[in-house]
């Protein structure tokens, strides 16, 4: 009996015998994220790419972003709903697919910017999604104007209705067919004034929370396609190693295993544009068969060129490199002269480890590759990157590649690279079947684009009056610019490791910032708030050390450096300006909240730090005590200024989450290398913080602001680690200069 007939037979048999419905739960059942009907397919009720109005006056709004936990499935539709004047409680949100298409002027994306990176979703949406909502509203008002034969200007809108001057209310649903036939205005429509906002700035809960708490929210890993086989890979544990030989005889004996084959790794030295490592793919009927098949493989690996690489050798290399000249990132005045003239020079080195992203949902991709089309369903951060990659690997035109994004179980930058998509495509091509590729946790920790490793050497020159005269920040790190695609090779030195205009640049006469590139075989990538996580740790720790050494107040020293409120040039992402006044304001507010001036004599210490990231300003303060070897965090405060707030509940979530992520990472996490292999492979040795370790509450204070809104996904992290080590110093007089904190604190205590 063929598979299909047998399945039909079982189906019929069970229904005939009066059993519960079958078919719903057959293992051929596909779970595919819905493609919104359209938004694309119902021209009579769709107003542009994002809005559909149903007959019962329910408004459906398309969410274009990649939802990785940062809340864009809620906040971006809020922008549209505001200008549309929808009743938010009656809005239903649907995830949009990737919108690549060939328009009249060539390739375009019908939905605009869809990737999730650099905290740009909100500022991007602020520019175009409000206009999309306003245009849809304009069309509805125009339809009502025609219906009532009144001038457009005399009509108003309120909560999904157009309102006649006499108070008569016409639901949008009754106008949408006429509105859809009207040509949209050629000029941009006027947007609301902030005082007219009814949705923006009001707390909104996650739109699909009910699906999440009932287990019905669909993540990439939850998707299945009929006929797809499950694949897992055993990847070479040696950096840039390869497969010497494979014995798959035991694997092939396992019921459900369909095929075993080699997947080549990238050519050593070439850009890391496809997959990360060579290995052996096991393709099977289900996950368990694939995993058992993988455990039964006997593979002899050929180590790559990095067998000498270890975390110890990297540290030696960094310390040696720092004695050299390096590459200038920014130089103001004459730091050498400042050193000669100085009454005193302070110096300290700060060590930051590699980090893995460890998204709760490990990398996963579900792909179909056919001669004339391809389909990718997955948890993504860069659907555009995935589309280009699939086109390169298959030779298909990009408009023939369909990409459906699901809710993603975390991103943190891991999904900005689509190496796992490339793997799935490579396996699908070899298997000749749709492939559901699963990474296990050990795969994920051992093969990643890691947050760069580095040693930061900071120096400050002081005159007779203990005034700062010069500041030097030398960073020896495994550059982020490593085996990048050709078009990224022109990146300036220190990219993603040392920010030229970061505090205290331009605030002192003499500044020396240099970068020293380390040799390493570790793939590197963007990890939430990329360079700011280690940049802020080094700078904000060192400022505290200067304050202590010179007998100054750590808050006052920062305020003095920041000086009068003004805008400084800032060339990095989040510029073009850095407002010293806004950073001073969050710092002051944070100091007030932690009662900075109150003396503690109960063994508790407080620490503070502040940082500018991607257009946002954040300060953190912690109150801690160390009891024996146990660190207790009694209070955690986070003050943030992200300009005008779209969803206060969402910004609060990002600050609570960023603070906890920052603590968990700073306290516990490091990826280390030995003999050219990553050593961590589970949550046992890469111990994400648990409830018991974390403060019970993070007190979040959101500054009122009328500045342009920026995102909030990343600025909640950078000032966490230095505020915490500063607090530990205040409580214990022990200065932790090496992350992660807990092993170092235990060594020093």
């Amino acid at each position: 009996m063929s598979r299909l007939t047998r399945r039909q037979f079982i189906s019929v048999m069970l229904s005939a015998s009066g059993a519960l419905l079958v078919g719903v739960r057959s293992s051929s059942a596909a779970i595919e994220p819905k493609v919104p009907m359209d938004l694309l397919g119902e021209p009579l009720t769709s107003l542009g790419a994002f809005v559909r109005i149903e007959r019962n006056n329910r408004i459906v709004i398309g969410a274009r972003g990649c939802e990785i936990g940062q809340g864009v499935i809620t906040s971006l539709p809020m922008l549209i709903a505001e200008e549309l004047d929808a009743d938010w409680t009656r809005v239903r949100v649907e995830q949009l697919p990737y919108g690549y298409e060939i328009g009249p002027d060539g390739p375009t994306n019908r939905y605009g910017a869809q990737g999730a990176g650099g905290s740009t979703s909100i500022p991007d949406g602020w520019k175009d999604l409000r206009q999309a909502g306003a245009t849809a509203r304009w069309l509805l008002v125009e339809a009502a104007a025609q219906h009532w034969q009144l001038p457009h200007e005399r009509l108003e809108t309120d909560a999904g209705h157009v309102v006649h001057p006499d108070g008569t209310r016409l639901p949008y649903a009754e106008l949408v067919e006429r509105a859809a036939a009207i040509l949209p205005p050629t000029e941009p429509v006027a947007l609301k004034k902030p005082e007219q906002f009814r949705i923006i700035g009001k707390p909104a809960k996650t739109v699909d929370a009910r699906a999440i708490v009932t287990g019905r929210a669909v993540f990439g890993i939850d998707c299945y396609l009929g006929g797809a086989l499950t694949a897992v890979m055993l990847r070479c544990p040696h950096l840039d190693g390869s497969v010497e030989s494979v014995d798959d005889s035991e694997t092939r004996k396992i019921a459900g295993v369909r095929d075993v084959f080699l997947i080549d790794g990238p050519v050593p030295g070439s850009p890391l544009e496809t997959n990360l490592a060579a290995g052996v793919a096991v393709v099977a009927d289900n996950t368990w068969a694939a995993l058992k098949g993988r455990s039964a493989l006997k593979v002899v690996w050929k180590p790559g060129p990095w067998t000498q690489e270890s975390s110890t050798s990297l540290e030696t290399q960094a310390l040696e490199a720092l004695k050299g000249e390096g590459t200038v990132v920014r130089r103001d005045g004459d730091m050498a002269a400042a050193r000669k003239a100085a009454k005193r020079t302070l110096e300290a080195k700060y060590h930051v480890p590699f980090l893995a992203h460890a998204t709760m949902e490990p990398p996963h991709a579900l792909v179909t590759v056919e001669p004339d089309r391809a389909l990718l369903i997955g948890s993504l951060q860069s659907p555009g990157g995935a589309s280009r990659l699939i086109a390169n690997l298959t030779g298909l035109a990009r408009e023939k590649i369909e990409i459906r994004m699901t809710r993603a179980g975390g991103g943190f930058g891991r999904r900005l690279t689509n190496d796992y998509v490339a793997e799935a495509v490579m396996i699908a091509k070899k298997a000749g079947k749709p492939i559901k590729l699963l990474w296990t946790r050990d795969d994920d920790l051992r093969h990643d684009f890691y947050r760069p490793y580095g040693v930061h050497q900071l120096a400050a020159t002081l005159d007779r009056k203990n005034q700062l005269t010069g500041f030097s920040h030398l960073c020896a790190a495994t550059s982020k610019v490593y085996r990048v695609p050709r078009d990224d090779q022109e990146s300036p030195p220190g990219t993603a490791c040392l920010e030229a205009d970061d505090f205290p640049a331009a605030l002192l006469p003499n500044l020396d910032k240099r970068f020293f590139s380390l040799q390493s075989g570790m793939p590197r990538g963007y990890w939430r708030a990329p360079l700011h996580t280690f940049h802020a740790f080094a700078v904000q720790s060192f400022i505290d050390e200067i304050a202590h050494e010179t007998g100054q107040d750590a808050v006052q020293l920062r305020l003095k450096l920041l000086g009068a409120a003004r805008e400084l040039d800032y060339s990095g992402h989040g510029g073009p300006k850095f407002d010293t006044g806004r950073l001073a304001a969050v710092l002051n507010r944070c100091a007030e909240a932690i009662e900075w001036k109150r003396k503690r004599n109960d063994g508790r210490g407080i620490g503070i730090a502040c940082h500018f990231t991607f257009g946002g300003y954040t300060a953190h303060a912690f109150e801690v005590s160390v009891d024996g070897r146990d660190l207790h965090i009694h209070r955690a405060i986070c003050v943030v200024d992200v300009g005008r707030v779209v969803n206060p509940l969402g910004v609060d979530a990002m600050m609570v989450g960023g603070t906890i992520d920052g603590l968990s990472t700073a306290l516990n996490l490091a990826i280390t290398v030995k003999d050219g292999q990553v050593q961590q492979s589970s949550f046992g040795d890469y111990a994400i913080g648990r409830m018991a370790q974390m403060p019970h509450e993070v007190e979040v204070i959101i500054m009122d602001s009328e500045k342009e809104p920026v995102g909030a996904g990343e600025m909640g992290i950078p000032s966490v680690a230095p505020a915490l080590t500063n607090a530990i110093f205040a409580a214990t007089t022990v200065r932790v200069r090496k992350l992660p904190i807990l092993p170092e604190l235990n060594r020093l205590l």
Partner: protein
Amino acid sequence: MRDAPAKVDPDTSSPASPGSIELTINGELFRHTGAPDMPLLWYLRDVLRLTGSKFGCGVGQCGACTVHVAGKAQRSCLLPVSALAGQSITTIEGIASGDDLHAVQQAWIEEDVPQCGYCQAGQIMATIDLLKRKAQPSDADISQLTNLCRCGTYPRIRKAVKRAAQLMADARAAEAKADDAKANEVKP
């Protein structure tokens, strides 16, 4: 329910094959005829398409796969189906009664707990178990929850656990009151 024929894995051979394993999931009886060592998590996900229980580590460290076996929270990635013959299992999909959410689910929504949402089914299953043992959990009790959350929702989870405990206490009080009223009614 026991009288109804068990559903079988549609992809495996005859329903009557020896060594098949019967287990009850969310009140329905199922018969597993595939690999007996298949962990419950993969049986739920790959075979039954109950995908609310998540894969996070496969070795019982993260708790994303937490389900209830005989009412107790267990990590389903470590439980072979063969060890569950005759057992009754509840997954996140079986917690609500129809459209009525469980108090813990309700509290999760009210406190807007989820960020990426991936670990939350496991967190909810672990919390329901905790609240069975400790109806009014202290902060120390809540700290015993060991499920990992990579997004850092712990402070909101803590609030939601307390809110759920309150919702459940209120419901019990209302029920007791209703019972009293009923008892009074029948008195002569």
